[in-house]
């Protein structure tokens, strides 16, 4: 224990100067000093490995753009670099918000599915736009095959996971409900527009939407009802 004669206080720290008035402290052998608080450590916001990976990613994006332009066939242009330009940031975001993130598994499945659907639709649109291959009659494979496949696969996977591991069920209910709504919406778009043309995909989506809703209410009625009460309480 040290003493500040100016402030007339005892200081429990191994210091030369008073933390209040910055005057010189004098020793007082009354008591043993202990470390009261942990030392300040500033954590680096980004490690060297992360910096190296970020650098490599940016180089890869730039290199793919230059290589694509340098080797472009002017009669039949193919802008494959779009996949790299959009894909690499997507991988970074997935690692950050899905793999490293400590959020719950149902949230991760839902967010990853939605992000992947939008990414693939975006890639197809960009490729077709820059290649000049888009018009009203264009059939989009991303919308006709990829989107319904992801919706069906993710919703079934989530239903099985939450049924096997009960602790996930309450966290999954709203996402299962959201998947069902998206599948029903897809089925509706298939029925009223010509934009979606693959009929078996449309019917599969509609069927899975109904099956999931039925499963939620038949096998987990109490939990589903309770979850709706919680989420919608006013």
């Amino acid at each position, binding site marked *: *224990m040290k003493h*500040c004669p100016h*402030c*007339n*206080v*005892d*200081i*429990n*720290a191994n*210091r*030369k*100067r008073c*933390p*209040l*008035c910055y005057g010189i402290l004098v020793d007082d052998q009354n008591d043993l000093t*202990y*470390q*009261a*608080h*942990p*030392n*300040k*450590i*500033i954590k680096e916001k980004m490690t060297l490995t992360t910096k190296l990976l970020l650098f490599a990613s940016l180089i890869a994006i730039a290199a793919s753009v230059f290589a694509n332009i340098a080797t472009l066939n002017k009669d039949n242009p193919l802008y494959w670099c779009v996949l790299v330009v959009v894909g690499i940031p997507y991988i970074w975001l997935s690692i950050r918000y899905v793999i490293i*993130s*400590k*959020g719950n598994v149902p949230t991760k499945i839902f967010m990853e599915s939605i992000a992947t659907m939008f990414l693939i639709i975006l890639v197809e649109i960009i490729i077709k736009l820059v290649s000049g291959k888009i018009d009203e009659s264009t059939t989009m494979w991303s919308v006709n095959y990829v989107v319904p496949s992801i919706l069906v696969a993710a919703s079934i996977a989530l239903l099985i996971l939450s049924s096997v591991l009960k*602790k996930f069920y*309450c966290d999954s209910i709203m996402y299962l409900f959201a998947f069902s709504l998206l599948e029903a919406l897809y089925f509706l778009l298939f029925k009223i527009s010509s934009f979606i043309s693959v009929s078996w995909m449309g019917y599969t989506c509609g069927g899975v939407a109904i099956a999931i809703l039925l499963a939620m209410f038949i096998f987990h009625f*109490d*939990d589903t009802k*309770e979850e709706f009460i*919680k*989420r*919608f*309480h*006013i």
Partner: protein
Amino acid sequence: MKNDWYTLDNAAKIFPAVYKHSDTNSYRVSVLLKKDVNPDTLLIATKDALKRFPYLCVKLKKGIFWYYLEHNYNDPLIEQEDPFLFNSVRLHTKAGFMFSVTYFGRRINLEMFHALTDGTGASEFLKTITYYYLLHSGIKIENDGSIQTEEVEKLSAESFDDFNGNYDAHVEKLKKEEKAYQIKGRLYKDNWTGLVQLILPVDILKDIAHKYQTTVTGFMSAIILYALYLSYFKNVKQKNNLRLFIPINARKFFDSYSLRNFMLYIRTTGEFRDKDLSFENVVDYVRHTLTNINRDILLRQLVSNVKNEKNFFVRIMPLFLKDFIMRIAYRMFGQYSSTVSFSNLGLLKLPKEMENYIERFEFLIGVSKMSPINIGAVSYNNNFVLSYATKYVDRHIIRKIATLLSDEGIPVEVEVNDLEVE
């Protein structure tokens, strides 16, 4: 799984909307033991204590219209103390608890997100953790009723939202309060929070407070106000008045057993501008403010707080919109009616057998750029610990407080969390 969820109490509703890593709206209650903490025993003790406080064993969830609390099935994490104060509560990561239990040397810290409970609730929880910690360390303790371990029939009353329970639509709201003087200063780098703790003997402090015909809370409030007056108001013309925010434990005024948030507050009302005041004048101001606290005034304040929540249009407004409006309102009006907060948890009581193993308790109120200086206090045995948390590098206010106390003949021991810059 049924019925294991809770709505947020009235005071809690603002905090999830304004939660940020740099402003977690949390506070800390700590206990300093006489021996180093064993983290394994601490984990067992925390799990045992959580069984007694199920309404604290929750995680925050988003509904369509309001947030709510749902039972958390994860195990709590016990970690080494983070040197950055009020930084260890993580609502959406780690195990998702709205509090954190950390340790450093002989100290156990309970950092609590304010949406869950107030200082009284947190101190009861920490007392129970400490009780189980000592029991599991092989100490024999006869619980004299000062530790919440049994009486599970009280759980319903403890988890009750007494803001809504005491709401009376016929009671008039309080008028909007004027803006108070705001302290400016140089911020620490890296979002660091400075801490200066003054450790004072309770018996001497009580004697001096009685000499001024006030309580320990009244005396310390006067010391803080007088230190602020000397620093910013004496011989300086100021536009806004000096106002100290003092939380009031509403339980004793409303016969409440709730251990969720149930605090109201007062702000000191004396005039500090253009006046030549002595310390005795400031003690009179504080005495006047404290003696005017009564159930009617607190009820009007409670009604002012709850009235907005009862509005039908507010209730049916989607949560994202409520969050957006609350964030703006918090930034515009949140802290501007007070200069500094001072909260005294009072004298904590524990069974006699625990006294030999506990040195003292500490109570720290979280600070942010908007509310850069807050002061917490708590007493145990003969140790009164005043914890001055600040975002500002400057030390003149706490130096004034320390020297005013020392001039009154009170022995002052100081601890700080800064490293000395040579």
